[in-house]
């Protein structure tokens, strides 16, 4: 017991490697941005309740019968009620600032030489700091109208305090001042105070705020017409008034039209326009802030601004992704249909090329495949097409070559070499090949008897230089297996049919592909330049002007990675390898002839769907979360489900084309949720590698081959995971 503890301790604490840290950091930043945005744009618990009127037994009479301004700051004395002097108007605008209407109102006020008081909310302030700054600079007053306009009588004291202090923070950040004025949301006249709202006013007073109610309500938010607004806002008998108007909350054009006429009318009646404190003859309610306070406010407003912009960018991205994803699915469905129909017509004999009788060489590179190699070779022995089999033993230490030789099969040769990596093994095999068509497969893959024939058949067209087969997942009953099965069926059944017709097949899977010997000679065989030699060579074949086609009936059965770890390292290799291959063939973009066509059509296509789109895909899930937390929940779930439905339709079609039973599709929703996240992290990791350590790795790769350069994986798996569903 003690010994094992000691061992455990000496192993040291596991550190979080960079490859997890960076993607996670990126995600966290995005989540943080969305949280700030969610906080500002909607409260955590959307709360639009307004309390019905309650009893008024506990509200002092002099408050109910008194003026619109309530000063309850000194808790040791009863609250004071203050009136506006006669012939004085205090214009107040609630709920703003609004980016459209508030500046126009300010213009009118300035033109008429009039000041008003704006009761602003924290959310709108943090979104429009510039307007608040201008409001204050032009001599108007601002007051706190809470952060997101809840009915305070439902809230507890700490929440009310937070509502006010955060609004104050936003105002500090926007205009560099604090204000002592406050107006509760959903308030009206002071005589409307009741036993529920009065304690709130007492509490807010104790925090140092002066409450400002109104005496005349223009009711402009009901859009009653310009004349009616003016009429509503006109006090009777020359009395002083606090007039309520709104600069936020929809169409304010009536308010805007009424305002100049109203000001002129009131001025002609001898009224003077003042702010709250001016009207009361009190010192300004606004005090400048400095130092830390101001910095904090600025930081808050800046965070909101940044998150606003980032979110706008993200929304743009998600729209882009949506178009890309849906467009791709539509394109795939159409092209897959066309491809399948052509294949069917060919099968019926309409213009089908005569079956090629030419025998083929099958290359089986093997490294420590003792468990599978016998099955692989036996499956080849029953091939319906005439073949020779060359097993290239890449320095196995488990007797792989001996097993093959022990089978004593006709037409099966074993070539032994020192361990030099898969590309070298394949090149070695190519040197030994006798026939004009070379089929390549993996040491743990099983062919059907007709597979080689199906792979060879398209070569009847002399323009075809390479053929991709159809890799199938054998271990499809585990969860990860089922996910990959769905991925493979869609990747081969739809993607590859599309790539075939668009002439930009990015990859011939290492597990199942065939090349014309002449083509191989032209491109110089397999290369060790990238981690994905299959993508590399396929691109090279395109650039030489050969066609690459997909043979859906050429099935090869493989065992997919069955742990997240293995899957991770496989996908990392593919992803990074594809990036390497694209970078290697980047010159194709500017070249002429077939190479240029591939470079200008195929490469951007592959880049869009394999590198850019998956990078943005997790936004879908991020916004799903955002929508779930901040709402609208129903719409969010509905749109996510409809995206899922589109996926499902495509998947069903792909399964039908491949004549696969549909039952595995039940794993699709979970696959969409979890797999996408995994693939995203892998992709980001590849990007990080490409942008930071890319060159270094490349160098190392040249010396030690594939085995050494794929991260965190066993040697056997490294060599065995070369069948790729997409690209």
């Amino acid at each position: 017991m003690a010994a094992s503890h000691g061992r455990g301790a000496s192993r040291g604490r596991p550190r979080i490697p960079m490859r997890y840290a960076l993607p996670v950091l990126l995600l966290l930043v995005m989540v943080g941005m969305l949280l700030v945005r969610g906080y500002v744009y909607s409260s955590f618990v959307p709360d639009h309740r307004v309390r019905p009127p309650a009893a008024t037994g506990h509200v002092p009479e002099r408050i109910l019968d008194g003026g619109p301004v309530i000063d309850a700051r000194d808790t040791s004395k009863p609250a004071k009620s203050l009136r506006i002097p006669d012939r004085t108007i205090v214009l107040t605008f609630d709920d703003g600032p609004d980016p459209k209407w508030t500046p126009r109102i300010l213009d009118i006020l300035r033109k008429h030489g009039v000041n008003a008081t704006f009761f602003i909310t924290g959310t709108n302030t943090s979104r429009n700091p510039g307007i608040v700054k201008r409001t204050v600079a032009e001599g108007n007053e601002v007051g706190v109208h809470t952060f997101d306009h809840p009915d305070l009588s439902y809230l507890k004291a700490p929440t009310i305090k937070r509502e006010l202090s955060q609004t104050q923070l936003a105002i500090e950040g926007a205009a560099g001042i604090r204000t002592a004025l406050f107006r509760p949301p959903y308030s009206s006249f002071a005589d409307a105070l009741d036993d529920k709202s009065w304690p709130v006013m007492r509490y807010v007073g104790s925090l140092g705020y002066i409450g400002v109610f109104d005496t005349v309500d223009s009711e402009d938010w009901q859009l009653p017409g310009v004349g009616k607004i003016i009429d509503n806002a006109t006090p009777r008998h020359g009395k002083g008034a606090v007039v309520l108007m709104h600069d936020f909350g929809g169409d304010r054009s009536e308010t805007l039209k009424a305002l100049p006429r109203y000001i002129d009318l009131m001025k002609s009646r001898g009224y003077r326009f003042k702010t709250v404190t001016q009207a009361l003859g009190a010192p300004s309610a606004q005090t400048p802030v400095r130092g830390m306070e101001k910095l904090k406010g600025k930081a808050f407003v800046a965070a909101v601004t940044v998150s606003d912009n980032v979110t706008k960018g993200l929304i743009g991205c998600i729209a882009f992704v949506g178009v890309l994803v849906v467009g791709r699915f539509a394109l795939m469905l159409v092209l897959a249909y066309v491809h399948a129909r052509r294949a069917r017509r060919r099968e019926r004999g309409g213009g089908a090329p005569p079956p090629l009788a030419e025998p083929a060489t099958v290359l089986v590179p093997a490294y420590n495949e003792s468990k599978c190699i016998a099955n692989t070779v036996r499956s080849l022995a029953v091939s319906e097409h005439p073949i020779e089999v060359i097993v290239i033993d890449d320095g196995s230490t488990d007797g792989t070559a001996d097993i093959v030789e022990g089978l004593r099969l006709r037409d099966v040769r074993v070539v032994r070499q020192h361990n030099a990596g898969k590309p070298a093994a394949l090149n070695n095999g190519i040197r030994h090949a006798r026939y004009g068509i070379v089929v390549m497969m993996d040491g743990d893959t099983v062919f059907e008897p007709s597979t080689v024939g199906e792979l060879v058949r398209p070569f009847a067209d002399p323009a075809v230089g390479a053929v991709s087969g159809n890799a199938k997942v054998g271990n499809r009953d585990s969860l990860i297996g089922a996910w990959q099965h769905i991925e493979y069926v869609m990747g081969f059944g739809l993607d590859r049919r599309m790539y075939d017709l668009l002439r930009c097949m990015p990859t011939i899977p290492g597990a199942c592909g065939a090349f014309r010997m002449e083509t191989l000679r032209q491109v110089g065989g397999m290369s060790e330049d990238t981690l994905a030699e299959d993508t590399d060579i396929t691109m090279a074949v395109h650039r030489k002007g050969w066609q690459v086609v997909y043979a859906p009936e050429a099935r090869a059965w493989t065992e997919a990675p069955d742990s997240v770890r293995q899957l991770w390292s496989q996908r990392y290799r593919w992803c990074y390898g594809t990036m390497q291959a694209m970078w290697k063939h980047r010159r194709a973009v500017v070249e002429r002839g077939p190479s240029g066509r591939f470079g200008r059509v195929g490469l951007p296509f592959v880049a869009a769907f394999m590198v850019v789109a998956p990078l943005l895909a997790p936004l879908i899930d991020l916004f799903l979360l955002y929508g779930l937390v901040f709402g609208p929940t129903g719409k969010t779930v509905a749109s996510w489900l409809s995206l899922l439905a589109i996926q499902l339709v495509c998947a069903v079609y792909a399964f039908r084309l491949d004549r696969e039973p549909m039952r595995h599709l039940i794993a699709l929703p979970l696959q969409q949720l979890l797999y996408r996240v995994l693939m995203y992290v892998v992709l980001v990791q590849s990007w990080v590698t490409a942008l930071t350590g890319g060159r270094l790795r490349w160098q190392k790769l040249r010396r030690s081959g594939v085995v050494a350069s794929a991260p965190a994986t066993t040697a056997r798996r490294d060599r065995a995971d070369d069948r790729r569903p997409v690209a």
Partner: protein
Amino acid sequence: MSTPYAGTPRLPGPARHRAAGNHPGATRPAIQPPAETTAGTAPAAAGGRDRYLDTLRAIALVRVVVFHIFSWTWLTIVFPSMGVMFALAGSLMARSLSQRGAARVIKGRVRRLLPPMWVFGVFVVGTLLYAGWHPSRHGGGITGIVSVLNWIVPVGAPPYPDPAAHPWGWLDSSWADQAAGPLWYIRAYLWFVLASPLVLRLFRKSPWAALALPLVLCAVCSTGIVTIPGESGEAVTDFATYGACWVLGFAHHDGLFRGIPRYLTVSCASFMMAAGLWWASGHLTSEGWNLDEIPLGQALWSLGFVTILLQVSPSWKRLPDRLARFDPLITLANNRAVTIYLWHNLLIMVTFPIIDQAWNIPGIDRFGSELDASYSVLSLVLVWPLLAVAIVLLGWFEDLAAKRRPRLWPNGRTRTMGRATGRTPPAGRWAGEPVRRPRHDREEGRHGGA
């Protein structure tokens, strides 16, 4: 003609051979391996205990204690303890019923369950009587006295006063309510044990029907199509809520999970959990996302969650190295599950007056708000030593009930009571007993204690 993959060591199990050459119509070799099973091991291999299940039970117990202190409702989602406990109990019940007759099994279960509960009952009822409570005042008259029998055989809810007097005065008046809070589980467990022979027969005849039945019952009760009032209604609701988990335990014992591909169970389970969350989102209580108060949400979420846990079920003969240091704790928790479960809520109540003593420390008033804020944490710290005392003082009743030699501290270490019992004693079949949150808010109790 050979079949690819046929007889390979790599793909264990009887691959469905469909030699391509023999069937002209067959276009592909049938190499799909059978479900990726847990390496063909039977659950809880004969004799030894399945340490995976033991670990789950220990986690469930700890989660229940933590939940009853902090009232974090999200804990009910993170780990649905009750569903897990009932599933484990169901699995063990199916195992016993496969080995012995129903009457003997039920007798054995009841014998293990009730004596520890009687000890608890004697303490609680004794204290209540001493403080002047009389059961006839509860339901009134003769019913009240009859209902006291539930303290002996809890087929219904045992009566207690709320608020309750306390002879020493330092416990909060809700103490009886809090103490009796966990008893609903005993009642539900008893119902399940009594119903098991019948349900198991139904399950073996038609597994899906047996699994669906409690869910349908739960849905019927939750949608208000049928409302059963009062105590029996709660009993039926509990039965319906966790019945599916119990049946899932049967399925685990019978090895049903191994016959179904993993992708299928996990996917279906995730749908079930999503449905549970969806239902819960529309039926939030005043406590928010407390699944314990949302029966159908709890039933679906627990069923999905437990399905995944049991599908994963690695059938550990011994704990993996990483968990090895928790071995004594896990063993102890499993051997004293009833004791821990029955007493933990009362002991949580007891921690508060103990923490109150801190106010007597001179100068503590300066840290008054900090002390106020840390009551829960202090309670969590204090409850474990109290539970340890309860285990030492009262735990051996569990051994007596199981007709075993009494032990003070059965954590699997050999020194206990001078007798080498090996890693784990074979019994402890009673499936542990966590609790759902007591039905009454315990906030008051805490503040009262402060």
